């Protein structure tokens, strides 16, 4: 077939149509061309020219160090001056981007995924606003953004983006992002579990200009303040981010003065390209293989269901492909879905934090890695699905990535970090809101989400409550400082929760107990937003176990502050003591899953949770008995627990280990394993089922058949096109159950059943 030839007239017509369509676009929604591409942009002619001009790697390295230093300075500014609790504990970042929008340098501290996703809104600005006569991009402009559908984790994080010019020429971009918390959603604190549509999630800012001539536009600022519960915070942190960006701009202009803008352009491009080259080399060193893993999610935060996060990780040559087919379809009216870039960014953090932390913290580290997902799944959700609780799904993506890569890394002669078991992956903390003791309306959360237990490593235990999976260097804050602003106390905090360890030859780092009670406000409440009260959220590694599950425990109908004044001996400092001994007269004790919707609290009522443990590594029978005893001494585990699980014989008074008896007990237990274990084929025949459990709503593929996914209620759909799934409000479910029960009772009692019509 011959190629169709167009006449000059036809080409002119086509150009006219294209211009007409561009000029009459009714809505500039998220652009798939931008949103589905995480790789660095192609080298521009200007970048090629600059690379040819500047070839001295020492000069490139020197400029990169200065840019890194500028990012650290910007980070410090935001951390010191930011008003959001997130800013104070390091839930922030600053970054420098190429003229095309690629993140090249991010601050060493902070949350890399924030910066790593801001390239999407910058590319949106480049594509749509530079030429747009009603907007434009000029020196001194600043753009604000928070909508994950244009590139973000979730809309509680807000970014400020500034272009940097040299003599009228755009050279690069700078940005600063903060987990602000409050954003005007239906629940305070910025991460509403109750959101059933994207319109319940509060401010949804596509990238727009909010700064001109380095000044925040007051009219737009007022609109934003009027849309959130913390107007002062909104203003203060917009200013802080702007000034951090201006400092970055100042440092970049100092580079212009010493080395020239072309040298800076060469530095940015050379850095990104060399990282891509190095990543390809490192991947080539891994064995060619396919690793399969999954983790289970037990909740949508509204109801308990089983959802699967499924990963097939394939490595061949210098290609590494993350395939998430078989994962749960999106739940169209639940907030736990994620936009595709959020999931990719989280996998990127697994690499930049735990696999290749020595590489420059930019976008290029992930650029070469490939992803395969099913649009409409909960890791690649539709535009209309809410995603304010995307952490629930992207953290599971982090875990399967961490688990799978560990199995590829072990054999490699060159490693850049220890092989380690999965980190704890849930934000077990209190989100809070209401009117504080000073009469101010607040909505935010406790820094304890940063206290996740670290995974055990191939040669040592995991660290306790070390850092969140999204930032290796973050803080868990000083609750005493927070208490100046919030009307509740953490009555127990930073005390490890005994017997919640993930066992192994090396155990996971453990999490701590948090017991909070409102004190000085009648208008205050808490939320908790985690999964993992029925099923563990991580896996162990190479024979190590995951940690157990974590509930929310509540004690109502008590004022514990009165108890402390009148009967202080009744107050206990651990969850088991309070829940098992029930020391408070006439109080109501209850447990719940960790998806607590916003709950108004009364003075002195207890809300009790624990951070989780990282995964264990290796066979627990190989654990050094001395390390078991040390854990007893540190109250991490009890003697009973140690004896039962680790098979260690010791004197309970002196804690002296009987080495010989321990060896015998462990040998005996290995023999017991050989008796209780059955050959693989026999096991499959006995335990493996053709379908998921019938009485539990399940979402995802079954037994590796990834072309079909279950969508709850034993319904199977085409995995490529699962369609929307809407869940009934749990309160409506309860009401329907109660109505049915009531009708039955009335019928049994011989009472008239009111109006049977459907």
């Amino acid at each position, binding site marked *: 077939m011959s190629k169709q030839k167009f006449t000059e007239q036809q080409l002119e017509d086509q150009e006219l149509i294209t211009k007409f369509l561009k000029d009459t676009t009714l809505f500039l929604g998220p652009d798939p061309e931008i949103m589905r591409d995480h790789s660095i942009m192609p080298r521009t002619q200007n970048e090629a020219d600059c690379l040819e001009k500047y070839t001295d790697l020492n000069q490139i390295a020197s400029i990169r160090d200065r840019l890194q230093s500028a990012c650290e300075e910007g980070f410090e500014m935001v951390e010191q001056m930011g008003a959001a609790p997130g800013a104070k504990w390091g839930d922030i970042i600053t970054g420098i981007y190429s003229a095309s929008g690629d993140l090249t340098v991010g601050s060493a501290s902070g949350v890399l995924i924030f910066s790593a996703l801001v390239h999407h809104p910058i590319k949106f600005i480049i594509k749509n606003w530079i030429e747009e006569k009603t907007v434009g991009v000029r020196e001194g402009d600043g753009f604000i953004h928070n909508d994950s559908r244009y590139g973000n984790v979730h809309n509680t994080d807000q970014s400020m983006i500034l272009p940097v010019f040299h003599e009228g020429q755009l050279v690069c971009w700078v940005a600063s992002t903060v987990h602000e918390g409050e954003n005007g959603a239906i629940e305070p604190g910025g991460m509403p579990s109750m959101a059933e549509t994207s319109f319940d999630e509060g401010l949804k800012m596509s990238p727009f200009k909010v700064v001109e001539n380095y000044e925040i536009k007051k009219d737009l600022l007022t609109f934003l303040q009027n849309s959130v519960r913390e107007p002062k915070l909104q203003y203060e942190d917009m200013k802080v981010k702007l000034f951090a960006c201006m400092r970055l701009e100042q440092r970049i202009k100092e580079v212009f003065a010493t080395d020239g803008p072309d040298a800076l352009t060469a530095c940015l491009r050379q850095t990104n390209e060399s990282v891509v080259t190095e990543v390809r080399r490192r991947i080539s060193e891994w064995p060619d*293989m396919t690793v399969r893993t999954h983790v*289970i999610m037990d909740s949508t935060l509204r109801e308990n269901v089983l959802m*699967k996060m499924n990963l097939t990780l394939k490595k061949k040559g210098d290609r590494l492909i993350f395939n998430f087919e078989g994962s749960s379809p999106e739940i169209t009216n639940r907030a736990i879905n994620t936009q595709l870039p959020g999931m990719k960014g989280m996998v990127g953090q697994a690499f930049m934090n735990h696999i290749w932390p020595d590489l420059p913290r930019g976008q290029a580290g992930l650029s070469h890695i490939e992803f395969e997902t099913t649009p409409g799944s909960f890791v690649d959700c539709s535009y209309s699905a809410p995603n304010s609780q995307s952490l629930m799904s992207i953290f599971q993506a982090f875990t399967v990535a961490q688990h799978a890569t560990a*199995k590829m890394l072990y054999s490699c002669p060159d490693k850049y970090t220890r092989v380690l078991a999965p980190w704890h992956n849930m934000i077990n903390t209190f989100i809070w809101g209401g009117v504080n003791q000073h009469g101010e309306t607040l909505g935010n959360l406790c820094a304890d989400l940063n206290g996740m237990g670290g995974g055990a490593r191939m040669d040592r235990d995991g660290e306790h409550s070390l850092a969140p999976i999204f930032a290796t260097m973050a803080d868990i804050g000083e609750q005493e400082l927070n208490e100046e602003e919030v009307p509740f106390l953490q009555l127990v905090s930073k005390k490890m*929760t005994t*017997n919640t360890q993930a066992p192994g030859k090396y155990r996971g780092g453990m999490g701590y107990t948090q017991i909070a009670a409102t004190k000085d406000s009648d208008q205050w409440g808490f939320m908790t937003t985690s999964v993992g009260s029925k099923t563990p959220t991580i896996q162990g590694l190479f024979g190590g176990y995951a940690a157990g599950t974590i509930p929310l425990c509540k004690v109502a109908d008590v004022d514990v502050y009165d108890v402390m004044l009148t009967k202080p001996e009744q107050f206990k400092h651990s969850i088991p003591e309070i829940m098992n001994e029930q020391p408070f007269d006439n109080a109501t004790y209850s447990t*719940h899953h960790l998806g607590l919707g916003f709950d108004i609290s009364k003075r002195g009522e207890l809300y009790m949770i624990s951070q989780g443990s990282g995964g264990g590594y290796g066979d627990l029978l190989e654990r050094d008995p001395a390390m078991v005893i040390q854990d007893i001494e540190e109250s991490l585990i009890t003697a009973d627990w140690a004896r039962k699980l680790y098979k260690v014989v010791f004197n309970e008074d002196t804690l002296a280990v009987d080495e010989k008896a321990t060896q015998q007990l462990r040998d005996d237990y290995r023999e017991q394993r050989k008796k209780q274990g059955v050959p693989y084929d026999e*096991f499959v025949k006995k335990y493996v089922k053709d379908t998921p459990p019938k009485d539990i709503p*399940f979402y995802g593929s079954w037994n590796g058949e990834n072309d079909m996914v279950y969508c709850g209620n034993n319904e199977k759909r085409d995995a490529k096109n699962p369609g929307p799934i809407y869940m009934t409000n749990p309160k409506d479910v309860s009401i329907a159950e109660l109505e049915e029960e009531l009708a039955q009772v009335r019928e049994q009692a011989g009472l008239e059943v009111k109006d049977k019509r459907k």
Partner: protein
Amino acid sequence: MKVLMTEYLRIDLDTENWECRVCDHVIGEARDNYKKGLLVYNRDPADIHPSIIDPTKYKFTFCPDKDWVNIYEFYCPCCGTQMEVEYTLPGHEPLYDMEMDVDALKAQWSERDELLEPTTGPNVMVDRHSHNH
């Protein structure tokens, strides 16, 4: 030559077999699922993660719900070492977690020296007792 694949598994490139690193037991063909040569046990989650609050009083107790999650343990049939643990959906088949391209592995290690112990990567721990400033 043998390649150390996990804490307890290695592949003998000459015989193309999975082997136990603890007792040298030959588990099975490296081109197949090593789990097929192991013993498997369906562990009650309560054995490993016992309730720390009273299960007769409370619904959620820090102990996983065994109707919602199973723990599959995989043992070497010769020495009883626990080589792998899998938290999974009740009734789900065990995962074929490590599917090797043995030919590629052979080619890759033809240019490397055999390692008898795994490398661990750089040590980033701070020596708290040094004064090297």
